[in-house]
């Protein structure tokens, strides 16, 4: 059963990724990306990483996609801009390099032959929300608090970049 689910999700993930890259309409690309992220979330679930799967859907397929669509609408890119209008030698080089990197990754993953590893009860527990919480607020306390600084800096930074002269309350009529 799990194997069927894996094959289905894997095919869906690869197909939607390809569709996303090859699609000319940016909005359609973004929607294919949602499908891709969803199927990856499914793959996480098969690995018993529940928290990660939910985060993947909420943050990536939810919030980040909203942002992507906003950016597309903000930039107002008109469609029909093909990526490959004419062939250049550099594409071939890039493709070959990509194949080499892919080959290296396949080689380095060489020992792994099973589609899905056997997941013991211990391993399954690691992916639950409780398990994440147990280490997040103790062992990983320092990176966790640093993340708060990171997010604050991101808020301020985004506003600094995006703002034009914003009216503040005391300037109002």
């Amino acid at each position, binding site marked *: 059963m799990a194997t069927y689910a894996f094959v289905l999700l894997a095919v869906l993930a690869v197909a939607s990724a390809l569709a996303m890259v090859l699609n000319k309409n940016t909005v359609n690309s973004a929607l294919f990306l949602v499908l891709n992220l969803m199927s990856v979330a499914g793959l996480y679930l098969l690995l018993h990483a529940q928290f990660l799967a939910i985060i993947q859907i909420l943050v990536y397929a939810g919030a980040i996609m909203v942002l992507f669509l906003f950016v597309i609408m903000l930039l107002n890119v008109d469609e029909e801009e093909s990526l490959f209008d004419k062939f250049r030698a550099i594409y071939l080089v890039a493709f070959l390099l990509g194949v080499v990197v892919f080959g290296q990754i396949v080689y*380095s993953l*060489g*020992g792994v032959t099973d589609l899905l590893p056997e997941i013991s009860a211990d391993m399954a527990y690691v992916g639950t929300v409780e398990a994440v919480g147990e280490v997040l607020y103790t062992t990983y306390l*320092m*990176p966790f608090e640093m993340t708060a*600084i990171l997010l*604050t*800096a991101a808020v*301020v930074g985004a506003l*600094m970049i995006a703002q034009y002269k914003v009216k503040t309350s005391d300037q109002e009529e």
Partner: protein
Amino acid sequence: MDYLYDLNTFIPATIAAAAGLVVLMQSVYKVKINTIFGVTVFSLVVALLFALRDLFGPVGTSFYDMVAYGGTAAFGTLLVITGTLFCVLISRDYLEAIDHHYGEVYAMILFATTGMVGLAVSNDLIMLFVGLETMSICLYVLAGLIKEEKTGAESALKYFLLGAFSTGFLLYGIALIYGATGSTNYADITALTDISPLFMAGSALLLVGFFFKISAVPFHMWTPDVYQGTPTTLTAYFATASKAATFVALILVMSRMMPEIEGVGWTQAISVIAIITMILGNLIALVQDNVKRMLAYSSIAHAGYLLVGLAAGTADGYTGVLYYLFAYTVMNIGAFGVIAFYERNQALDFTDVNNYAGLGYKQPVMAVLLSVFLFSLAGIPPFVGFLAKYYVFAAAVNAGHITLAVVGVLTTAASVYYYLRVMVFMYFREPHKEFDLVNPGAIFKYALIVLCVLTVYYGVEPVFPMGSLIELLTSYYTETGPAGMAGP
């Protein structure tokens, strides 16, 4: 575990973060910008004092092995805080002159400092990543501070896109290392005995991420454009504090996580990168007319010299790199600072070296300072840059990497041309037209003079009998076990 004790070991970054929040709130409530500047400087001075205290303190790890303290990590903290402090000191007048003096800039600098310290003291790949990201996000924003101009927008966009891409490499590397070893902790990873291809692939990707951040050659494309488009004093910040933090993190990773294991040839890889970085960085710097771009390529070249020490892979090498980082921080902030001073004269265009003609006799103090910093960058004897290069190359020779040292010395000789060229223009060319320079503010001037004193003092330090900096650094690698890196 005792959280207060742990917090005590991480206090410089905590101070920086808290000050960042205070400054942020002050900028909302329209506190005078000079007060904000004062708060920033004050907090950095306090953090500097704590960092100095930690320099001689105990060595260990805290927060469940997330961060290291003492030794290399303490020195990294000190470097970052020192770099930040001087960059802030020279920033005020410059940012005022280019009309981009906002409170948020200081907040971003302080947050970036927090991230840098987190990066420099990280003892776990998760901490490393979070620190690096905190630093990078702030730097992306600072790179785009002059967003009205094309160069500013280009610099921010280029830095952000390439930076995010390289972070992807780094993260993928971390993921593969975790997959191979089942841990993100340096000590646990070192304990692993069999080296799988997965681990090798992970470490390679991790190093690629690092090489990008330190702008080693195949990954250096962003550096000149980013350095050019960023406000000059913040460029100094990019070139020194962030590079110092990344290099210290790299030293910790190399020494604690990836010590020499049979059949693992990172030394060769780093050697090759060091050689092409030194050659290419110096060669391209030779033909630059824009002073900031020249310094950008020079900073690439310096990354090459630093990699020489890292390639040596010995305690001597790491000590040399740390010393070099100190020297580089001091002299590079100085050089950028003086250039920032010239750029404050908005009516005159001081991006082109040709316009430096005759500058030597206007504001002679500034010209002398620039000469000292450039001499030091070129590695000419009575200054700290020479000693730093000496330690690094000597370590390489002792470790048997003669080629590296030879290439290093030759490229250093070539680099003298472009550093001295600026001085030739300043002292031996007639100015094109009459002009007057603005008066450097007192803080600006004295900050640069302090840097100059440091440059000179540490250049002649070995002749003094008292314990020198290099001895302190060496002690980190000899007192606490083999190569001092095992640490508790």
